[in-house]
């Protein structure tokens, strides 16, 4: 074991290495470690925030769906009522229309009957005259017997 000037040289080397490590390497390495730790923490926080947001969105979606369902139900009810109303109105219209048509038909029938009756009346008069002619065997002057014939026709 012989101690010599190597000690001094080694002290110099050692001090130099320490100085370089302290000055240039240490801050860089700890800096990058800290930066990454910060980034990881931020990422975790962001993930947690995302989770929370997701939950909030889910509950909001549920709310919206519920509201929509309620509205749809209300609309359905409304539509049902409106349909009933329309059907009711249509029924009413149809009834009045039917009544009107019926009335019109009645009037027509009455008119037709009257016409037929009038026509028949005229024909009966002619028929009666020609029948009487044949029975009597001679011509009856319609002018002279008009009064009689009219009385006859009115009697039919």
């Amino acid at each position, binding site marked *: *074991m*012989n*101690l*010599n*000037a*190597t*000690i*001094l*040289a*080694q*002290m110099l*080397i*050692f*001090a*130099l*290495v*320490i100085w*370089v*490590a*302290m000055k*240039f*390497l*240490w801050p*860089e*390495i*700890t800096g*990058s*470690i800290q*930066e*990454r730790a910060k*980034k990881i923490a931020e990422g975790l926080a962001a993930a947690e925030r995302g989770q929370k947001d997701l939950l909030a969105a889910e509950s909001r979606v549920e709310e919206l769906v519920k509201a929509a369902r309620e509205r749809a139900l209300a609309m359905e009810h409304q539509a049902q009522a409106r349909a009933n109303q329309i059907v009711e109105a249509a029924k009413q219209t149809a009834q009045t229309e039917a009544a009107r048509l019926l009335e019109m038909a009645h009037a027509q029938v009455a008119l037709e009957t009257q016409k037929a009756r009038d026509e028949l009346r005229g024909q009966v008069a002619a028929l009666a005259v020609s029948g009487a002619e044949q029975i009597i065997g001679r011509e009856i002057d319609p002018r002279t017997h008009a009064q009689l014939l009219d009385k006859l026709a009115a009697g039919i």
Partner: protein
Amino acid sequence: MAAEATQGPATVTEYIQHHLTNWSWQFGQSSFWTLNLDSLFWSALMGLLFLGSFAIAVRTSKRSIDSAPTGFQKYAEGVVTMVDNNVKDSMHVSSPLIAPLAITIFCLVLFMNAVDLFPVDFWSTVVAERGVGLENFKSVATTDPNITFGMAITVFLLVQYYSFKMKGAGGYGKEFLFHPFDHWALAPFNILLNLVEQIARPVSLALRLFGNMYAGELVMILIGLFALSKGWPFSVGAASLWVLQFVLGILWGSFHVIIVLLQAFIFMMLTIVYLSMAHEHSH
């Protein structure tokens, strides 16, 4: 080993001496002015290895700040986190020096120790003597007390500097005079005690590392003696010695991994403790 034997019979003493002699250069009159070039070479090389690997890690981390760390970055940040936690655990004050210092010590000592895990003859005989032509070349820098003392004294000076800086001249002097016995009459005794305590620290720091590594290296060399000058194993006896040397080498090498790590860790931890004590006011 075998290489040794083919070069002519090396005696046990020659073999051991060859492995324990430094490649040195005397540049002054006295023998103190000698540099152990091999130790300094390994020390500087490991320093560069440490700085270089961390520089690569810094570059990769700058390039890919958003992705998970890979390769060198993982190694560097692992070491930094480990040391940082150790520092934070034993310190109550924060200092910009302690953690980088601890990392430098840990990596440097670990790297220098780890050279011990190469086969004993690899660097000294195969590379240096055969390859380069150096007569002596020790590869494990921490088996050189100059290296361990160099580091321990540097740590000691830093501790003194920081205690002076943190406590001021008054506090520093007061602690020297009135600690551990708070009475003016016992001041001389306190001074003596503190001197011993302060000086014992770097000495124990240096000797602990040196002793452990030197002993480990010595056992490696002794294991290397088994098949020394037995030549190529033609006889049963020589062959069994080869096997024995191989098995023992593996066993001791595996155990040595623990020592290599542990000594680096101890050197680092003690440095942290000393420096944190230098920062503390109350005693």
